[in-house]
C-alpha cells in the first residue's frame, strides 16, 4: 500500500518539474491577532520616494480605511502587499508566518490576499458566471484547470455570490457589457469567490450612484469580521459611513491613525488636506 502511494507520488503529472509545485498551501497563522505587518518599508521610483518608512499593522477581522491625498502612496502600498512591486527595504508579513516578500503575485493570492484594482478589471470576454468560476478558490495548476468540471457545491457558491453582488440576472451576460458600477461589484464578487482572508479594495465606489454606494458600504461592513478588509477611498462620505479605524497616508508614510473623528480633528491632517 505504502509503495503504491509512493509510486503514485512519483507518477504525479505535476511533480515532473519542481516549479509546477504549489509552494503555498500554507495556512496563515493569526495567533497574535494581527493579519498584516508592514515594517520600515521604503520604495522609490527614479529618486521619487513613493513609500517612505511605512509602518502599518492590520488586525484580523478589521475593516480599515486608508485615506490620503493623491500621491500619498496608497496604490503603491497595495502593490507591495500583493507582490506587484518589490520594496527597496523593509518587511511585509501576512500573519505570523508568511513572508510576502518571497512570494509571487499568484502565490500571495493563493495564500489568501485578494485585491480589487482601482480601475475595475474584469474579464470582458467572459460571462459574469465565468468570471466568478475562474476566480473560485481551488487548485489553479495547469492540469487540474484543464480537467476542471463544476460540481453542485461550486455552482451553489457561485449563485450565492451572484446574489450578494446582485448580478443574478446578468449571469450569462458578457462582463464587458456591464455598467461601471456593476463591474465594480463583479470584481468584489470575484474577490469573494477566492475566499480570501484579507481583501484589499482600491476605490470601490468610484463612478457609483448613491444607491449603489450604500449597497457597497453594506456589503463591505458585512464582510468584516469573517474577512479582514482594507479599503482605500477618496470619497470621505463613504469612508465615514463604513470606517471604524482610519489611517491617513501622506508622502509615503503614516500621518495619523484612529477613528474618523479623531483623524479629522488632527491638525496635521487638516494641514495636509486643506493646506496652510
Amino acid at each position, binding site marked *: 500500500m505504502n509503495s503504491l502511494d509512493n509510486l503514485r507520488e512519483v507518477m504525479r503529472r505535476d511533480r515532473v518539474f519542481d516549479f509546477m509545485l504549489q509552494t503555498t498551501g500554507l495556512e496563515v497563522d493569526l495567533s497574535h491577532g494581527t493579519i498584516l505587518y508592514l515594517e520600515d518599508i521604503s520604495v522609490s*521610483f527614479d529618486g521619487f520616494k513613493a513609500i517612505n518608512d511605512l509602518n502599518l499593522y492590520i488586525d484580523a477581522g478589521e475593516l480599515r480605511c486608508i485615506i490620503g491625498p493623491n500621491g500619498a502612496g496608497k496604490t503603491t502600498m497595495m502593490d507591495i502587499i500583493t507582490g506587484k512591486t518589490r520594496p527597496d527595504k523593509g518587511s511585509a508579513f501576512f500573519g505570523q508566518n508568511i513572508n510576502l516578500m518571497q512570494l509571487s503575485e499568484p502565490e500571495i493570492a493563493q495564500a489568501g490576499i485578494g485585491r480589487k484594482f482601482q480601475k475595475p478589471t474584469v474579464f470582458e470576454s467572459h460571462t459574469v458566471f465565468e468570471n466568478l468560476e475562474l476566480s473560485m478558490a481551488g487548485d489553479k495548476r495547469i492540469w487540474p484547470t484543464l480537467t476542471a468540471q463544476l460540481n453542485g457545491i461550486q455552482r451553489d457558491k457561485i449563485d450565492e455570490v451572484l446574489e450578494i453582488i446582485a448580478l443574478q440576472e446578468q449571469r450569462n451576460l458578457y462582463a464587458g457589457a456591464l455598467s461601471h458600477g456593476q463591474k465594480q461589484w463583479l470584481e468584489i464578487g470575484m474577490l469573494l469567490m477566492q475566499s480570501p482572508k484579507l481583501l484589499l479594495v482600491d476605490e470601490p465606489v468610484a463612478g457609483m450612484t448613491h444607491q449603489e454606494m450604500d449597497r457597497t458600504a453594506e456589503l463591505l461592513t458585512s464582510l468584516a469580521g469573517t474577512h479582514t478588509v482594507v479599503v482605500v477611498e477618496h470619497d470621505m462620505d463613504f469612508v465615514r459611513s463604513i470606517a471604524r479605524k482610519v489611517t491617513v497616508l501622506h508622502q509615503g508614510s503614516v500621518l495619523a491613525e484612529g477613528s474618523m473623528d479623531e483623524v479629522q480633528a488632527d491638525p496635521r491632517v487638516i494641514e495636509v488636506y486643506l493646506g496652510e
Partner: protein
Amino acid sequence: MAKLITWILLIIGITVVSLNPTYASGHPIADAAELLKSKKFTDKYRAIELLEAEGSEQAEKILIALQESRLYYLKRDKKLIILAPDAEPLTATNALTHEDIGPIKKSAAKKISLNNRMRSQIRNVLAMMDLRNPLADKRLAAVNQMLDNPSAESATLIQTLLIDEQVPEIREAMEIVIALGKLTSGDKNERLTAVAVLDGNIHPAVRNGLRKLQQQTTDKAFAADIKQVLDNIQAKLQLYSLVENIFFGLSLGSVLVLAAIGLAITFGVMGVINMAHGELIMIGAYTTYVMQLLLPNDIGLSLLLSIPAAFVISGLVGIAIERGVIRFLYGRSLETLLATFGISLILQQTVRTIFSPLNRSVETPTWMSGSWEINSALSLTLNRLYIIAFCLLVFGVLYLVLKKSVLGLQVRAVSQNRAMARAMGVRSEWVDAMTFGLGSGIAGIAGVALSQLTNVGPNLGQAYIIDSFMVVVFGGVGNLWGTLVSGMGLGIANKFLEPWSGAVLAKILVLVFIILFIQKRPRGLFPQKGRAAEG
C-alpha cells in the same frame, strides 16, 4: 617656294636635334656606349660607372635595358640599340639618339652580354640613382624597396645619403634601413644600438630582420633582447589591430544606429511598431540612386543633395503611412505590426516593379573613397569614417530637435500624456504625423548612408529591420542615448566576434545574446523607470 621648304626643313631639323640629343665622342654616354660593346667585362664595369656618374635619364634607360637584356648593337653599323620589351615584331630605338629604328630582325643585332657582378652593380647603381632622384616619391619608393631586402651594403649606401635628405618620412625609412643593415654587423655594440633603434617599429621588414637575427645569433642575452623588442612590436601591432577592430565596430555600429534611430522615435517615443521602417530606409537609398541618375557628372553634389531629398521623400511616405493606416490602429500595437508589414511588402514590390528586382550600385564620390593611412599597420577607410561622423551628426541634430524645439516638446508631451497634451492645446494628430514623418525621414537619411556601403536593392530594408528593432529594444525603448550606446556596442561586439566565429555565427550569437538579455532585463539597457513606464 623652295626657300620656304628649306626653312621648314631647317626648323624641323633643329627641333629633331633638340629633342634627340646626340652625344659626340668624348661625352660620357658615348664613351660608355663604346665600352659596352667591348668583349672585356672590365670595360663594361667601367661603362656602368661612367653611366652612373653621368646620371641622366638617358643613362638610366640604358642601364635598365642592359639589366633586362634588351641592349643590343647592330652588327651592320655597331649602333647601340634598345629593343622594346615584348614587342612583336621586334622594334628598336637608338640607345643614344632615341631615334626609332623600326622593326628589325633578331639576327641583325648582337646582345650586350652581362654577368652577375654587372647585374648587382647595375642594381645598386639604379637604386642609387633613384635615391638621388629629385622627386621625393621616387626616393621614398627606392628606400622602401631597400627595406624589403636589407643588407649591410645598402645600409652604408644610405648612410651617405641621409645627411642630405630633408623629407622626414624618407629620413625615417632610411634610418630603418641603416639599423637593419647594422643588425648584420660584426660589432656587438653596433648590433645592440641597431636593435634599440628598431624597437617599436612596425614595418614588416623590421620584424623579418629581427627574426632572422634571432635565429642566427648564438648570444643568449642578445637573443632575449631581440625577443623583447619583437614582443614590443607585436604588442603595438595588437594595439593597432584593436583600434582597427573598434573602428570597424564603430562603423558597423553607426550603420545600426542610423537604421535604428528613426525607429527609436516611432517605436520608442510614439510606441508605434513600424515594420515598414526598413523599406523607408530602402526608399532613401533609391533616392540616392535616382539623384545620381539625374546628376551623373557630379557624384559628390548628388550625394549631398540626396540627404535632404531622402529625408523629405521618406518622411512624406512615412506621413502617408501614418495618416492612411496607423492612425486607425492606435492602441492596437499587434495589428499595427501586421498592417505595417503589409505596407512593407507593397513598398518592396513597388520598387521591384519600378527599378527591377536587381541590385543597383550607387557610386561613391572620390572624396569618400580611399583610406586614411596612419601607418603601415593601421589605415581607416574614408567612407566608414564619414559614416561614423555622419551618424553622430544625425544623432546630435535629432537630439537637439527633440530636446530644444517646439515639436520636440510637443512630441514628449503627447508621448507622456496624450489627453493632457490635447487639453493644453497640442494638436496631437498633427504631432503624431510630424513625429512619424521625422522618424521616417531619418530612416531615409540612413538609406543614403547605406547606399554608400552596400548595393541598393528591394531587399535592403528587410536586412535591417530586425537589427534595428534589436538595437532599440536592447538600448531601452524611449531612450535615444540607449539606442546610440546599444547600436555602437552591438557593432563592436559583432566585429570582435567575427574573427573567431565567422560573420554569420557572430550575428546569430549577438541575436541570441539580445534575446537572453531581454529576458533578464525586459526594459533594455537604459530602462525608463517609474509609474509612467509601468502601464
